């Protein structure tokens, strides 16, 4: 490679690293400082006396904050995992039908799926809340999960559909000759083949669900169902809340998606490319 190109790339790598990481580094940095250290000028570029005090205050012990954070962490996992599993199962069934079967109204239904991806979320907030209230699902895990599933199902279907369409149908045809039913073909041949796309869909759905705020805020009434994001906002809105503690709450809320993004980036990238309508 020519030196000029090498310089170009080195600069670029430096840019990507600092652009993506500095804001995240900064919140981690402040989470290891005391409140007094944060307001020092000039700012400390690294924690002068790093310690776990803020994390202990939010995670360990009988404190009321720690209780809230722990409970909401359990809630967010239950809600995100359930929503992800249901979304992936239903989306792969639908994607299979769209990709491999001819039926009346196929194009029409596909069009509807694409259309719903474009609705801004707050358009549906109050009506959605009304529907949930009328079927007594406000403040239940199920209500929040159904809301997530309805929101992410179109995109998940789209990602899986594009992936299935990129696979040659020949393998499945070979299977069908042996007299297997279409669902057997789906289970035994298609499902193993689309595993990478299922992983993509799952990871993306999970990350989207993790990031939700306004819907769970309205749909969850108390700590039994409130996810971590709602609790972070509640901490942020307190009258007296040290920025150090707030940073720590932020780090806790970003740690899970960050780890997932770091380790599953291959699936995220391919999923985003397949579902790039959103």
């Amino acid at each position: 490679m020519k030196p000029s190109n090498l310089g170009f790339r080195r600069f670029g790598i430096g840019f990507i690293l600092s652009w993506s990481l500095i804001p995240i580094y900064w919140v981690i940095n402040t989470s290891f400082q005391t409140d007094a250290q944060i307001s020092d000028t000039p700012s400390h570029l690294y924690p002068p006396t790093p310690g776990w005090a803020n994390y202990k205050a939010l995670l360990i012990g009988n404190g009321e904050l720690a209780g809230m954070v722990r409970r909401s962490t359990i809630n967010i996992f239950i809600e995100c995992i359930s929503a992800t599993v249901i979304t992936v199962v239903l989306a792969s069934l639908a994607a299979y039908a769209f990709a491999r079967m001819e039926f009346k109204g196929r194009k029409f239904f596909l069009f509807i799926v694409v259309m719903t991806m474009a609705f801004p979320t707050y358009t549906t907030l109050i009506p959605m809340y009304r529907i949930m209230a009328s079927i007594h699902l406000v403040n239940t895990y199920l209500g929040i999960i159904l809301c997530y599933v309805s929101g992410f199902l179109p995109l998940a279907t789209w990602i899986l559909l594009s992936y299935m369409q990129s696979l040659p149908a020949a393998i499945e045809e070979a299977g069908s000759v042996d007299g297997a039913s279409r669902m057997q073909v789906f289970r035994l041949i298609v499902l193993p083949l689309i595993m990478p796309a299922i992983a993509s869909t799952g990871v993306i759905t999970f990350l989207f669900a993790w990031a939700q705020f306004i819907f769970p805020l309205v749909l969850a009434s108390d700590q039994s169902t409130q996810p971590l994001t709602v609790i972070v906002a509640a901490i942020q809105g307190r009258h007296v809340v040290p920025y150090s503690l707030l940073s720590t709450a932020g780090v806790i809320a970003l740690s899970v998606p960050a780890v997932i993004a770091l380790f599953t980036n291959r699936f995220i990238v391919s999923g985003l490319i397949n579902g790039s309508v959103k």
Partner: protein
Amino acid sequence: MNKRKSVDLLPYALISPLILFIICLAITPAVYTSVAAFFKVQPLNPPTHFSGLDNFRDIIHNSAVISSLGNTFLYIVIGVTLSTVLGIYIAVILQRRFKGRSILIAILILPWALPGVVEGILWTGIWDANTGVLNSVLKSLHLITHYQVFLGQNRLLTILAIEIVQVWQITPLSTILILAVLQNIPDDLYEAATIDGSNSRKSFLHITLPLIRPGIAIAVVQAIIATLNVFDQPYILNGAATTANSLAMETYAVSFQNLNFGQGYALSLLITIFTLLISVVVAKFIYKKVEY
């Protein structure tokens, strides 16, 4: 092909859960919103009744909405430009394989994966005029003599600072969409150009840029949709101030603060129509790619 007597029910069974979800929890609320946009829905001022285009007329006379319209336009222009240019730049850096490239991609995606609630916390620590790190660093480098106010004073600077936060979040997606197309460009095209005496700038302008246009198109559309709906970033960083309030924030304020739900629905409907128009264009575009 032999003709079937009965209708093939399997595909309908397979898509029925999806369609059920869409009808119950997406279409029904959307239809409700669209209809209610033509009604006077003001709990403070009952009764609710059909009011034709009144809500839409009121929107035009709502000065906060008008200022947010201008701001949103700026968000779109700044956000789409920055995220696309950065997206192309980063994608070009990542075009060829090199050691550590996959780790770099993993790090690149991070901002996209984080929840919006956290983003506000992250960036207040950076922009803050009294304790922010940007001021601290600029002052240490002697680039400024005293702490600057980034947010709230100058409209353009405020919007730029806020939009950078959103760009930080949406650029990973733009990059990946562009990179996907970029990687399909065969190497021999570049080799042939090099033999013809083309330098890297020329190759970029004459080979790369024209060929990644489909990727750019999708990236631009997702950026338009994201910036058109910008909410968290201005709300957290600049409050309700008219310097940087967005259309989405006004929709929220009209509904939940003024309790003028009819007008809120009307505003939502306008945003939805605009978003749909853009999406339909893309959907058509992608349809061509997948429907052989």
